[in-house]
């Protein structure tokens, strides 16, 4: 195995072992950050590899989380009407809430609904060759639609407060450390799977088609590929990752509200990836963890300067570190390589691709 491969496994091993060396509070934070890392991998795929900047991933995350939360809410209400509905004067469970009594329905719709939305939206947009900043701004408009809807339809969604006060999941108490550790491990496993799958995608010929689309979408057409199909696929895939993150998020945090899927969180998701390095999957994971750790550090200690720091981070990364932390690491390695006179790096690649010859 290569040195890089070992580093990856070591990283994930450290994540697996986290319950043994982190306090309960820190572990719950890390669990939350790993959910964000899932979203970050998806954004890296669409933005770093394919060149699509989506400012709407909060919606897919939110829809996934809400679907899961509806199940949790019903389970915690023990057959009665959820509390917020009573407060809003609703007397009967709305029809579309009913199927969410079944965990399988809830989990599968938590994935399927966001993916369908992403596929529907991206199919028409990309087919009509709307791209670049126009797509970004349109995806932001989608966020406005959903956030306004979720706040406005208080009797169905819990309004600004969102859905919270869950007690159990599949009969296990959500507040017990044991359940939380299991949920944490599931999150790590899912993250690992998402990471491996995405890595497989990017090193394959499929990944090269994505990069080619980023470099020049029209040229790809004249090689006989239909960019729309590829873009819709990868965009929907990233929506699925965000939805999965939403499910795990609501299980561990026990709360989802419109403020977590709005315009600001959506654009912060992009920042995680920018910090880590937009076209590096592991960079995206690390970026999500680092940025969010910084966020909780600042908001615990210096809440006033958090926004200044965040704003500075946006500007600084774009201006000075367009390839993020992964870029810093790479240029460091290159400089080190040059010092040690290791220039046969390029040569080894040739022997790999032309190996059978």
């Amino acid at each position, binding site marked *: 195995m290569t040195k890089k491969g070992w580093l990856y496994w070591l990283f994930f091993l450290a994540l697996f072992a986290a319950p043994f060396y982190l306090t309960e509070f820190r572990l719950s934070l890390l669990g939350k950050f790993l959910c964000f890392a899932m979203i970050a991998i998806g954004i890296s795929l669409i933005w770093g590899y394919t060149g699509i900047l989506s400012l709407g991933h909060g919606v897919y995350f939110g829809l996934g989380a809400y679907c899961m939360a509806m199940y949790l809410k019903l389970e915690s209400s023990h057959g009665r009407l959820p509390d917020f509905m009573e407060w809003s004067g609703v007397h009967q469970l709305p029809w579309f809430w009913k199927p969410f009594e079944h965990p399988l329905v809830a989990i599968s719709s938590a994935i399927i609904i966001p993916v369908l939305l992403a596929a529907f939206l991206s199919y028409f947009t990309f087919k009509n060759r709307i791209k670049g900043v126009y797509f970004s701004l349109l995806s932001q408009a989608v966020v406005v639609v959903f956030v306004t809807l979720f706040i406005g339809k208080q009797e169905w969604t819990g309004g600004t407060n969102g859905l919270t006060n869950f007690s159990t999941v599949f009969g296990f108490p959500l507040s017990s450390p044991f359940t939380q550790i299991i949920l944490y491990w599931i999150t790590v496993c899912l993250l690992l799977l998402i990471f491996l799958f995405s890595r497989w*995608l990017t090193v*394959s*010929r*499929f990944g*090269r*088609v994505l*990069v*080619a689309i*980023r*470099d*020049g979408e*029209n*040229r*790809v*057409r*004249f*090689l*006989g*590929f*239909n960019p729309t*199909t*590829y873009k819709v*696929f990868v965009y929907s895939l990233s929506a699925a990752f965000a939805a999965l993150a939403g499910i795990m998020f609501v299980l561990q945090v026990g709360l989802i509200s419109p403020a977590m899927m709005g315009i600001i969180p959506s654009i912060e998701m992009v920042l995680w990836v920018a910090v880590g390095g937009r076209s590096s999957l592991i960079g995206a994971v690390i970026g999500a963890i680092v940025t969010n750790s910084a966020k909780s550090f600042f908001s615990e200690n210096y809440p006033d300067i958090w926004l200044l720091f965040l704003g500075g981070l946006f500007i600084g990364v774009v201006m000075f570190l367009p390839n993020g932390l992964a870029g810093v690491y790479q240029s460091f390695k290159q400089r080190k390589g040059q010092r040690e006179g290791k220039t046969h790096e*390029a*040569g080894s*690649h*040739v022997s790999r*691709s*032309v190996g*059978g*010859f």
Partner: protein
Amino acid sequence: MKPVLMCREVSVDFDGFHALQGVNLEVYPHEVRFLIGPNGAGKTTLLDVICGKTRACRGKVLFYSHDITKMPEHKIVRLGVARKFQSPSIFHQLTVWENMELALKQDRGLFAVLRAKLSREDRDTIIAVLQRIQLFDYAEQKAGSLSHGQKQWLEIGMQLIQFPQLLLLDEPIAGMSEAERERTGELIHEIARNCAVVIVEHDMDFVRRFSKQVTVMHEGKVLCEGTMEDIQKNEKVVEVYLGREEKAC
């Protein structure tokens, strides 16, 4: 013999500007057809219409028996029409090898590409083409780092490896050195053994050296067709084309 390409009364309007006005063109297998004409004659627009980048507002384009007038670009390519653009349109962030791998004749559907592996046969093909365009030693370099002439060749290589039946070239020798031009001219005739070629070219020496059939376009219409000698004798051509050059001098 059946024509590879048949354009019938093709017209294109750009916001009221008549870029093409009823163009007829037939190209037969193994033919190398040069399109010449002053700027704005509609040569590039005609190539754009054939490959689907621009839509004809009237008329028909047939590729063998397929009507490709309204077909999306990628489907036209899949039928066997390859297009090289004026400025090198290769993928700068990918290596030369990866560029070739994408251009390979293959099933370009999403799921086929997901499962795609480089077969021994494909690998040999890529190596053969890379050697032919003299880029084998650069296989692992990023395409963006090549010289201008090499980029042009890489793109020609990417058209070659598609094994097209019709190749559309837009000013393939622009920016090339004398030796590179010579080599490109030979390459084009090698290619024509297996496919028909349509070339837009401004360089008259190159046209003289490598052309058999030439089509002269002017103001969105075909002015005349024939060998270079015929055309040089044609008074209309001298008037619109050479006459203009004299005036410019």
